[in-house]
């Protein structure tokens, strides 16, 4: 079935550069007095949700914002390290809206929607202006102007940054904008609250059922529109760089109420994370992509050296240059260590699968700064008129340069691994990081449920099959500050006479009952295994069979195994404590129940997509050199409709048409 008559993507007409402006010129507006009569619920307070809540409140809507953390400032956008892209062309290196648009579509392996990506590139410059006005302390040069750095997969310097804490600074900016509206009474903030159900009245999203995580109380909240900004679902793998609480529940609940879920199999595996150290591991820590500017990735060439290293008989620093395999430089001479994330991750897996992994579990490669330290050291020695051949001087100076660039990351690594990365190479391995898939939305960012909007990582729209570095922050803020506030007005203009939505309707009764029934079921189940037990089991199946490399047989097995785990979960899960109290296990149980359903749809989507593209790699579809092989047949977004069970989900296809970009083979050689 195709996306069309019932749910058009509502793409605007005309030349792509004018589409957003034309669109804005022709939408319906809500007058300021009427905005006061309209309530909007925003679920999630990361970059997308926080910026949306603040802007909607500023426009005059009555906003209710929800987050499960104890403060909106803690949403996981805060952990983003490297930077945010914007087509400002401050460096005068030829950047433009079109180039950012082009790079993003290509980086996404031609699986993103042109109109959305162009709009994203167009508003990107506004984001930087807005954030600076809010007091976000971006890095500056000595002239007092904003500085930029480079990220993977592009040929210009367009990334704005605040050391290794860009996400934190941007989120605190959005949080401060929220605070201003909270103080004005235009945002009512619900901290430590979790959305557990969407309430629909006459086919429209009209409210949510939420649980107060402190008292356990079930609450009804009504509104004229519901905005979901709950982030990605990487935690379906159990281990990921997501926060412990990151979950799919909000988007999964709306999926079960009728919102189509698009491209669940597009998952970004980030190449540079700290490897797993044991069974107790609860999460994985990212080492910023920016490290690949100076770090060289390698494994030993000879199996006997690998063995000696694993047994601790040989140190990596003792291995001669000719015995090292700098496999990214070998395979991709043009981009070298700075190939995009999907490519770098697969290459690491390939070496480790071939038996060259350098830690005890065989799942780690080296990220080595020795050459960079020497290069910078010599440069500095030359500048300072010191002896360029004195190894101690050069090493000391070089380490100082590295420390200035990446000090906090090196410290983080040392605290976790207890190894000094200035002296010995870092050990890294790919880990689940970001999910490009998510709720299908039209150009207005509205899902297939009228009045239910989905923004940020939670939707599917802008990154295609692979996201470029520093683009997630851009999308989150673009959606929240500059896109949704316009598009939602078009929808709400029909609601100015509706009046307050009462919460004593049968629809609210029913939704609340469903929520309570599930919670009671958990508490009364009295099984034998903890929630984490099932989550870890699910994660293992996902990683082994639906992870970096997938094949038809593994995917079929995975779907079957996930069903089994789900059955076992409902029979044997043990949730201690009661309903009406602070009960983290109860909250976790609900989240894992949703992951157990999503996981199956994920595998189903990966199985149906008989091609390799971006983060989705099917072993059956690769070139002779082991590169991803796209198939034009699959040039569509796969939007799944829930029909009662993930295995019976119905596929809707949105064809992706490229009128402004030529679809080409994506090569980094």
């Amino acid at each position, binding site marked *: 079935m195709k996306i069309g008559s019932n749910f058009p993507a509502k793409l605007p007409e005309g030349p792509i550069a004018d589409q957003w402006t034309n669109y804005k010129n022709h939408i319906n507006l809500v007058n300021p007095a009427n905005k006061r009569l309209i309530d909007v619920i925003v679920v999630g307070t990361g970059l997308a949700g926080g910026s949306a809540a603040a802007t909607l409140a500023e426009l005059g809507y009555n906003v209710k914002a929800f987050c499960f953390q104890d403060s909106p400032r*803690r949403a996981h956008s805060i952990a983003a390290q490297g930077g945010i892209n914007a087509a400002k062309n401050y460096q005068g290196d030829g950047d433009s809206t079109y180039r950012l648009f082009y790079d993003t579509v290509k980086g996404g392996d031609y699986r993103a929607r042109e109109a959305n990506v162009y709009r994203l590139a167009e508003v990107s410059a506004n984001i930087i*202006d807005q954030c600076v006005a809010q007091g976000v*302390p971006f890095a500056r040069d000595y002239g007092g102007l904003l500085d930029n750095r480079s990220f993977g997969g592009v040929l210009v310097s367009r990334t704005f940054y605040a050391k290794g804490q860009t996400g934190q600074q941007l989120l605190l900016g959005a949080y*401060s904008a929220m605070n201003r509206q909270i103080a004005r009474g235009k945002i009512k903030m619900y901290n430590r609250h979790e959305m557990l159900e969407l309430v629909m009245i006459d086919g429209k999203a009209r409210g949510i059922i939420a649980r107060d995580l402190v008292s356990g109380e079930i609450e009804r909240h009504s509104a004229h529109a519901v905005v979901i900004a709950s982030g990605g679902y990487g935690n379906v793998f159990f281990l990921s*760089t997501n926060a412990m609480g990151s979950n799919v529940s909000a988007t999964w609940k709306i999926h079960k109420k009728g919102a189509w879920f698009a491209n669940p199999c597009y998952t970004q595996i980030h190449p540079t994370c700290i490897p797993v150290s044991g069974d*107790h591991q609860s999460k994985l820590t990212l080492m910023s992509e920016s490290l690949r500017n100076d770090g060289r990735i390698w494994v030993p060439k000879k199996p006997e050296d690998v063995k000696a290293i694993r047994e601790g008989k040989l140190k990596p620093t003792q291995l001669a240059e000719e015995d090292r395999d700098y496999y990214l430089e070998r395979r991709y001479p043009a981009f070298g260590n700075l190939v995009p994330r999907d490519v770098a991750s697969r290459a690491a897996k390939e070496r480790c699968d071939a038996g060259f992994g350098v830690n005890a579990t065989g799942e780690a490669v080296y990220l080595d700064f020795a050459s960079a330290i020497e290069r910078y050291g010599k440069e500095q020695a030359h500048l300072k008129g010191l002896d360029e051949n004195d190894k101690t001087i050069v090493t000391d100076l070089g380490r100082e340069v590295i420390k200035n660039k990446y000090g906090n990351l090196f410290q983080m690594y040392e605290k976790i691994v207890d190894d000094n990365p200035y002296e010995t190479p870092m050990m890294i391995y790919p880990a689940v990081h970001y999910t490009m898939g998510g709720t299908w939305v039209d150009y207005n960012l509205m899902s297939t449920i009228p009045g239910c909007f989905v923004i940020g990582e939670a939707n599917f729209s802008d990154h295609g099959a692979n996201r470029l570095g520093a683009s997630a922050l851009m999308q989150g803020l673009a959606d929240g500050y500059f896109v949704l506030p316009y598009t939602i007005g078009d929808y709400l203009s029909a609601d100015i006479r509706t009046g307050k939505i009462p919460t004593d309707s049968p629809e609210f009764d029913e939704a609340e009952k469903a929520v309570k029934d599930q919670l009671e079921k958990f508490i009364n189940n009295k099984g034998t295994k903890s929630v984490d037990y099932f989550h870890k089991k699910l994660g293992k199946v996902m990683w082994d069979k639906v992870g970096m490399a997938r094949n038809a047989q593994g995917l079929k097995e995975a779907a079957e195994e996930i069903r089994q785990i789900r059955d076992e979960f409902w029979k044997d899960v043990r949730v201690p404590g009661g309903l009406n109290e602070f009960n983290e296990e109860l909250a976790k149980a609900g989240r894992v129940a949703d992951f157990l359903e999503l996981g199956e749809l994920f595998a189903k989507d990966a199985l149906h997509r008989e091609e390799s593209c971006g983060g989705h790699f099917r072993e059956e579809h690769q070139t002779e050199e082991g590169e991803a092989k796209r198939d034009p047949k699959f040039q569509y977004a796969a939007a799944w409709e829930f029909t009662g069970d993930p295995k019976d989900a119905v596929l809707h296809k949105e064809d992706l048409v490229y009128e402004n970009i030529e679809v080409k083979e994506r090569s980094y050689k």
Partner: protein
Amino acid sequence: MDLKLKIWRQKNSSDQGQIVDYDIKGVSPDMSFLEMLDVLNTELIEKGDDPVAFDHDCREGICGMCSLQINGKPHGPDAAITTCQLHMRKFNDGDTIYIEPFRSRAFPVVKDLVVDRSAFDRIQHAGGYISVNTSGNTQDANAIPVNKDNADHAFDAATCIGCGACVAACKNASAMLFVSAKVSQYALLPQGQVERKKRAEQMVAQMDAEGFGACTNTGACSAECPKEISLTNIARLNREFLNSKFN
């Protein structure tokens, strides 16, 4: 290694609470402190007991959600990290470890080791922002150059994660380091000038209303701060406040 844990247990905010002893065996030195508590909780759940409640989320030292007073120190014995970044290799076999919530009148206990830090949010509502609309028509980001030193110091102050370790470490449970970090960030940037006086005045008033103690300049806050926020910010806050009153 085997450890003896002395953990504060408190059912809810109205419960009295007490220290309860737990033995935990086979702890790996590569575990993070929170992973050690995960293991304890799994054991408790499987035995049918109530697991220990503690706040945590990103587990990479940036969200500010994790807390814990470990052996008398916020975020435990290591410097410049949060509890989630603390690893068990900092302890020895046979150690006794006290685990308590961050204590302050302004941070009431929610359950066990979980405290309510919404006082920090309310201080921010009182003025922790620059009043600028997200119209998309703000002036170009490079229209006002900012001196690099000021920009860097503003950034250093802005790295505060709002965890509350400063309050927990201070003998007076003072929130001055937290408030000073936010006030400093804006005081150092041209964008923050318009509301400078009002901001300092209102944020300090809210800080006092929340019941935090006064600053006696011991420096314990800065010593325990995971982001090493400097005491110069507190002096700046004093200056900003006095300036708002006397100028």
